[in-house]
């Protein structure tokens, strides 16, 4: 670091005006230009986060019957809310359920997305743009709508699948049974999520210069060999990115189980961690423990994302540096 200081002579001669000009151009103008961004960040990002933190250290305090004015107040709770969040068997249960869900969903979703992207990119594919749109389309359906739609298809009493099976004298198992309901939710997420991930991978495949393929062809590479040895390694960064997005989305699963819940006995109101937060905040009217739980979830998401990037970064981005 080299610090250039004006000489003592210059300092005395034109010190004040120069300094103020310096201050203006080096401090005021840049910050003025950044101000809209800083203000938006403060109002919409920092303030809610800090407010959540403040809430998470508070608790409701009631005296006596808790009825009437002034019988309820808020008090400092210390780490109570965090302790009860981390030791709550319901919370741990919801975390385990979502981990299982993620272990099933993410490999399937990325696998299908990659397969479809490679198929579409293959030179022999016809009706590429139609297939691309068809696979992508479910992504445009909001999760609540698609859950309602699939819920209707799952309910044995009204499902056309169950109806058809019954015509052939078979009885399909109900996907809303407790041991299958995770798959039922995975299926909805898969249906909605494959298209988006496929588009990301397909786009980065399109960016690969065609000379590479020509060279591979001259070397006698088959389509499958090209896919495995050239295409997949080249688009590894976008695989990493889609994996990261999928992991974060998995930890935040909410709409699908919430929409399916009233249809069956197999989903509790604390099935996923976010459902538990929602229940605490709005059904049980306890924003304080909901705030603590959501901070725990946010931290866990951050740590998992960070660790994942640490592990795969070298492999995925190694050749770029």
């Amino acid at each position: 670091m080299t610090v250039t200081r004006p000489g003592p002579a210059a300092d005395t001669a034109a010190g004040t005006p120069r300094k103020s000009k310096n201050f203006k151009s080096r401090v005021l103008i840049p910050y003025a230009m950044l101000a809209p961004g800083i203000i938006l960040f403060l109002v919409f990002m920092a303030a809610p986060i800090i407010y959540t933190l403040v809430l998470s250290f508070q608790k409701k305090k009631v005296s006596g019957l808790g009825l009437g004015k002034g019988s309820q107040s808020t008090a400092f709770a210390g780490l109570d809310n965090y302790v009860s969040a981390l030791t709550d068997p319901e919370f741990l249960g919801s975390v385990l359920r979502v981990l299982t869900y993620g272990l099933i969903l993410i490999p399937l979703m990325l696998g299908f997305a990659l397969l479809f992207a490679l198929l579409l990119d293959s030179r022999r594919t016809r009706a590429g743009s139609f297939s691309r749109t068809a696979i992508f389309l479910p992504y445009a359906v909001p999760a609540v709508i698609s859950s309602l739609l699939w819920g209707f298809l799952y309910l044995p009493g009204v499902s056309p699948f169950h109806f058809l099976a019954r015509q052939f004298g078979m009885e399909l198992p109900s996907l809303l049974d407790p041991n299958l309901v995770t798959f039922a939710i995975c299926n909805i997420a898969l249906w909605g999520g494959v298209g988006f991930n496929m588009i990301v991978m397909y786009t980065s495949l399109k960016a690969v210069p065609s000379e590479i393929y020509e060279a591979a062809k001259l070397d006698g590479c088959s389509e499958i060999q090209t896919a495995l040895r050239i295409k997949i390694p080249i688009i590894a960064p976008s695989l990493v990115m889609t994996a990261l997005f999928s992991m974060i989305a998995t930890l935040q699963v909410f709409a699908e189980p919430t929409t399916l819940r009233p249809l069956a006995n197999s989903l509790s109101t604390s099935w996923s961690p976010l459902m538990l937060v929602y229940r605490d905040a709005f059904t049980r009217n306890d924003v304080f423990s909901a705030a603590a739980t959501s901070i725990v979830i946010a931290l866990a998401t951050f740590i998992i994302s960070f660790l994942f990037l640490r592990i795969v970064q070298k492999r995925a981005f190694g050749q770029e540096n």
Partner: protein
Amino acid sequence: MRKSFRAGAVAMLAAATMLAAGCSGGSTAGSQSAATSDPNQKVELTYWAWAPNLDKVVELWNEKNPNIHVTVNKQDGGDPAVTKLLTAVKAGSGAPDLIQAEYQKIPTLVAADALADLSGTVANDTKSHFPDGVWNDVTLGGDALYSVPQDTGPMVFYYRADIFEKLGIAVPKTWDEYAAAAKTVHAADPEAYLGTFSSNDAGWFTGMAQQAGASWWGVDGDAWNVKIAEEPTEKVAEYWGGLVEEGVIDNKPMYTPEWNTALNTGKQVGWLSAAWGPGVLEGNAGSTAGTWKVAPMPQWDASKPSTGNWGGSSTAVTSQSKNLDAAAKFATWLNTEPEAVKALVEVAGIYPADNEGAKSALTKAPAFFSNQPDFYDVVGEAAQNVGSFTYGPNVNVAYNAYNDQFAKAAQSKQKSAFLDAVSNMQQVTVDDLKKTGFTVK
């Protein structure tokens, strides 16, 4: 490096000031301005409600009272409206003047200081209009008055008269007869059931327990009592658990597409529901009109008829209303004025809480039950037999525990699981009260 740190510090400070400002906003929530002094001053009131067509009833009021104009703001239903109101109370602004509040939500709303005390207004003179049990729900047994009763949901038994006739089943008068009828229905058609045990409708189960004599909360001096895991409720849970275990009663929730279809196709042959049932049946199974009939609920002891209450709501004034007197005047008119009660029955299709109003307005059976002219005689008699029931400050927690615990029990199809669900419900409810700092005995 330094500068970025300073910028960060400034950011933190700014956020902290904003936060402080937000917090101080909350403390003014409880303050109430004095009632408007000039009676001729024009007042605008907002009213959050979800009963169908309530806005048409309110139009009658607006025509006659140009100085107190009420705007109905349609809500999704009881729970979402309460959630929104509690949020507005916490935020310090944004609440309406009036809200349609279900009876079981009143203790929660009072505990959160969301409702104004109407005991000093005209609403206090309406006591003689309502049954004692209902009045107890809106006063919580004290001197304050938190809302004006609107409608109630005395429970009755709806059944498919044509199928009963075909199978030669008599209308069950006791729960034993109901169980026998359930067996007959299911034996005749393995896909048909006399009813379903729904883990999604805590209010339904509360009504069942109420009929058996339960009252889940109680006040003992300065402390709350929780009495869920006691004989009446356990008896009810054991009864339904037994029917589900035998497989003669369905175990799937109500209000699903599957349930609607079953109502339409005669696979759900009966429904234990409340006075507002015809509206639901008409909406979900309109093609079966004329085949249903209503009867009193089956009894535990036929010599001492009693029934439960499922649903029903009242009109409350929120603690943020600046026009307490005007709002109380409107709430009184809406729920006790014969003209308004008549409109509530005819346009909004509710069963009014007002004794006299119910008698004079409920003369004609609902269209869906046009085959049963004495429909309201049956319902009216049931309404006289509603037992008293005290709700506590954490009904929401208990009802949520009902959903989760009984979902597991209904899924397992085991009688013992139903009894476990009752004791878990008690545990969760008591733990929550203690955790919040209520005194619990």
